[in-house]
């Protein structure tokens, strides 16, 4: 086996090891996926879609372009771009939170389907890649801002559908916490 291959493989393994161990997303002494995240409100940024749409209004911008000075138009364009970037970042945060919920559901399920899990992994990777591309496009001024609406709609709907699952998880989390606390008080070995 070539030395270069071995050294590269070892370097990749060590890099992945430290990446996997670096700052956990959720700290929890029990080692279980955090149930606190389930109880967080998830419909946050996606619900500001109306305000964002107003800010991105094409008519407003055309009106300003026709009547206002060039400096003002440039400034407005920059502001719109900044808002779009912030909104996109917040949408991604919403998306990540929903994805985490899906992972918690998977982790707490007695059976999971490999096909669903791999599909979600593939979709997450694809989403991350496309998100970076969109971000790049927005910075470069290549993308249409009003198309943010579709993204917002999807996130909003997903949040809504997840609410019932979150409610159930929240109830079960409370029961689990109470059970664990009772067992700890009694000093029982539950392993």
């Amino acid at each position, binding site marked *: 086996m070539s030395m270069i291959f071995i050294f590269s*493989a070892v370097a990749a*393994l060590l890099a992945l090891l430290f990446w*996997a161990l670096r700052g956990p997303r959720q700290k929890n002494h029990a080692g279980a996926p955090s149930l606190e995240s389930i109880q967080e409100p998830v419909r946050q940024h996606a619900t500001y879609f109306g305000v964002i749409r107003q800010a991105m209004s094409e008519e407003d911008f055309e009106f300003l372009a026709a009547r206002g000075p060039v400096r003002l138009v440039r400034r407005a364009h920059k502001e719109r771009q900044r808002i779009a970037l912030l909104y996109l970042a917040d949408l991604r945060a919403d998306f990540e939170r929903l994805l985490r919920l899906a992972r918690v559901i998977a982790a707490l399920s007695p059976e*999971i389907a490999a096909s669903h899990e791999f599909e979600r992994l593939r979709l997450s990777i694809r989403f991350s890649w496309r998100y970076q591309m969109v971000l790049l496009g927005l910075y470069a001024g290549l*993308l249409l801002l009003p198309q943010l609406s579709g993204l917002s709609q999807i996130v909003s709907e997903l949040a809504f*559908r997840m609410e019932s699952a979150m409610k159930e998880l929240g109830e079960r989390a409370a*029961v689990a916490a109470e059970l664990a606390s009772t067992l700890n008080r009694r000093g029982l070995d*539950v392993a």
Partner: protein
Amino acid sequence: MNDLGPLTKSLWAMTAIVQVLLLCLLVTRRNVKSYPAFSAYIFMTLAQSGLLFVAIKGWGFSSTMSWRIGWATQCLVLTARAFAVAELCLHILGRFRGVWLLARWILLGCGAVVLVYAVVAANHQWRLIPNTAELGLEMATAAVIVTLLLFARYYDIVVVSPLRSVAIGLCVYSCVSVVNDAILERWLSRYVSLWNESGMVAFLACLLVWVWAFRRFAPQPTADPLLLDRSVYLHIIPEVNWRLRALNEQLMQFWRLEAPRT
């Protein structure tokens, strides 16, 4: 023993002392019950050191008998190591039944593929067959541990101490062994002494990490997470995946250069 350098001898002595210390900690801090395979692995490494000491003292470092004893005991140690890794996997993912059912086959498959590839792709020389096998096993061990930790990270499962230290120690030592064995394959005669010493230094460092991790009493076992009804997964996850797919498609709409859809 005269054909061993003073550095090797002192490293050997230090390693034996730390192995004994770690075993004492495992026993007195009641960690043996929670980590039987890991404790057995540490015991095996200590027993191997003792046997090798006797063999080298009796027949010399370069004798065929010492070489045979060395590799025979190494086979046992590697087996114990494999069990310790399996125990680690079970500790980290075992409580999450669904994830564990999926992960164990992936971990086994990953280990087997890496092992077979490493052994098949190696440069075969009769004297280096044990080295090649060891290289393959060590690479498979490192790959399994990394995959395990990636699984844990993906599902937000926190790897608490001492499991974290055990995983780091086993993986880093495996990586060092792979590099060590690979270099030995290429420059056998000139590298033997350095090969011994670098392997011992790496193992000593891992032992110190484990001593630090096991200095405390075994933590109180935590209650298993209360699992959801299987219908929750069956209802929610396909819906989430469908939405994610739609979201990906929506994201593509941002890109002006996208090809028109049929």
